[in-house]
């Protein structure tokens, strides 16, 4: 771990696109919206951007090239990442590494998706389309022939982990519900959140439409059109820019690419090693974290990371969530903009944007984590086994 990188780089601007069901939007268009807002926030001209590291929908080749073309710039370093929800923090890790290597100076990192617009229909409609057989390949596509055995969709894969955690540690449905309810309360305070106007009580959660036990509708993240972007540069250069920089105190990544079914990867996630590296680089520990912007593709994934980041002991994520710790004003305010369960699902990019805003104290008292100085961000994905961690610090 190179602790010499601690506090030497910064995020100097953030942006996000319109968010939610943005009729007719495209991933590239949303990426542009977010990128321009981030550059404007930082006070950086597009001619000063000399690195692009981003990610879009899986089926778009060379997303970074398409973004560069729309911006009309050439850059010293650019690539599209392929580590699922771990990619967005990885883009910042790679930006710091590329600047450190002298390949570029000011990097645009971002992610966008048009998950709602490209299907342009509700989850309900999509499922009934699948149920009629219309949108399903006649062949099971993965190495386990999952679909031949009736396994469909991301919820089920993550639900295996939730079920094992429940059987090993006594985690309950209501404890998963505590995660969903806490994040929804935060979304209710965020006027841009997809679920801003929809309340969710524990009773509502319990009555959620069944999907695949132990998950119901409210355990699953949203179908969202959204883009997010940040600008990364050195602290040296950051001092001349418009906004107070937010220091990159540390980062880490780890990838259990042996697979979700291997070992105890379902309940001991790659977040264990990833967070350890990030804490080490930052010279900080779990007790120093003022807010946690956690990757919540499903309630269980947020819950298990509470343990894997050391905020509580292994197996105690359920009681910890149930204690109210994750709420604004709680011991560890988490997903303070609503998270992917309630703000909108942009594969962790909006969590990074929110962490920066919290560290800059951008908000009024209804949304600001009081005296927040150190914010932990997590990213998780790529068939549920890849993880990255980012520690941000106020200046």
């Amino acid at each position, binding site marked *: 771990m190179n602790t010499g990188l601690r506090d030497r780089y910064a995020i100097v601007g953030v942006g996000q696109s319109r968010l939610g069901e943005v009729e007719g939007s495209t991933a590239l268009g949303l990426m542009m919206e977010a990128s321009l807002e981030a550059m404007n926030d930082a006070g950086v001209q597009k001619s000063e951007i000399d690195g692009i590291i981003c990610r879009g929908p899986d089926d778009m080749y060379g997303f970074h090239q398409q973004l560069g073309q729309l911006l009309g710039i050439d850059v010293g370093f650019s690539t599209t990442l392929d580590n699922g929800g771990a990619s967005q923090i990885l883009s910042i890790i790679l930006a710091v590494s590329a600047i450190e290597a002298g390949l570029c100076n000011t990097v645009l990192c971002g992610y966008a998706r048009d998950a709602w617009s490209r299907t342009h229909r509700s989850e309900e409609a999509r*499922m009934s389309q699948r*149920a009629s057989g219309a949108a399903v390949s006649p062949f099971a*596509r993965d190495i*386990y022939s999952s679909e*031949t*055995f*009736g396994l469909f969709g991301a919820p089920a894969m993550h639900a*295996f982990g939730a*079920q094992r955690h429940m059987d090993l540690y006594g985690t309950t449905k209501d404890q998963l519900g505590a995660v969903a309810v806490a994040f929804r309360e935060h979304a209710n305070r965020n006027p841009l959140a997809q679920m801003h106007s929809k309340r969710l009580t524990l009773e509502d959660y319990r009555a959620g439409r069944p999907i695949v036990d132990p998950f119901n509708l409210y355990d699953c993240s949203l179908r969202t059109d959204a883009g997010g972007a940040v600008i990364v540069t050195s602290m040296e250069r950051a001092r001349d820019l418009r906004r107070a920089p937010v220091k990159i105190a540390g980062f880490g990544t780890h990838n259990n690419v042996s697979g979700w079914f*291997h070992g105890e990867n379902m309940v001991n996630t790659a977040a264990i090693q990833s967070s350890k590296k990030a804490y080490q680089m930052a010279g900080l520990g779990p007790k120093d974290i003022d807010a946690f912007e956690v990757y919540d593709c499903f309630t269980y994934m947020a819950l298990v990371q509470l343990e894997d980041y050391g905020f509580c002991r292994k197996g105690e994520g359920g009681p910890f969530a149930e204690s109210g710790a994750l709420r604004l004003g709680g011991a560890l305010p988490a997903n303070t903009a609503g998270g992917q369960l309630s703000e909108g699902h942009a594969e962790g990019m909006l969590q990074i944007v929110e962490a920066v805003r919290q560290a800059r104290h951008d908000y009024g008292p209804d949304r600001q984590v009081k005296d927040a100085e150190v914010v932990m961000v997590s990213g998780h994905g790529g068939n549920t086994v890849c993880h990255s961690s980012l520690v941000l610090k106020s200046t």
Partner: protein
Amino acid sequence: MANEFDEAMVLPPLPQVTEETRPFWDSCKEGALKLQRCSDCSEFRFPRSVACPACASMSYSWEPVSGNGTIFSFVTFRRLYHKAFASLLPYVVAVVELSEGPRLLTRLVGLKDDDTVKCGSPVSLRLETISDDLVLPLFELAGTHG
């Protein structure tokens, strides 16, 4: 031969049988599940690979397994994703750890209303004929058959 997909009159998505996976599917049709076994360190493995994940040896043979194991984890589908499964809802998909070590993805069959499925529950193989070309390695709670 009648099977559980007859009522739906549609088959689930079929496995892509390749030269690498054909011995697995053929063994099911022949009535005794076989997995790759390393000729050097004797470890069984799944999913199929040209090399042993334990010792990287590329020599192997296809050997029968006991068909006994335990549930590593499981999920219960309550929403329909594919019409082949309409009459099976709710159905349980499980990761089963064979006594030989490898973990298979499978579906549980023969469950009764009062059966309790838990991580660790013992299970045994039940080969189910789906079509002339396909026999699936499904599992049932141990001791429930017949």
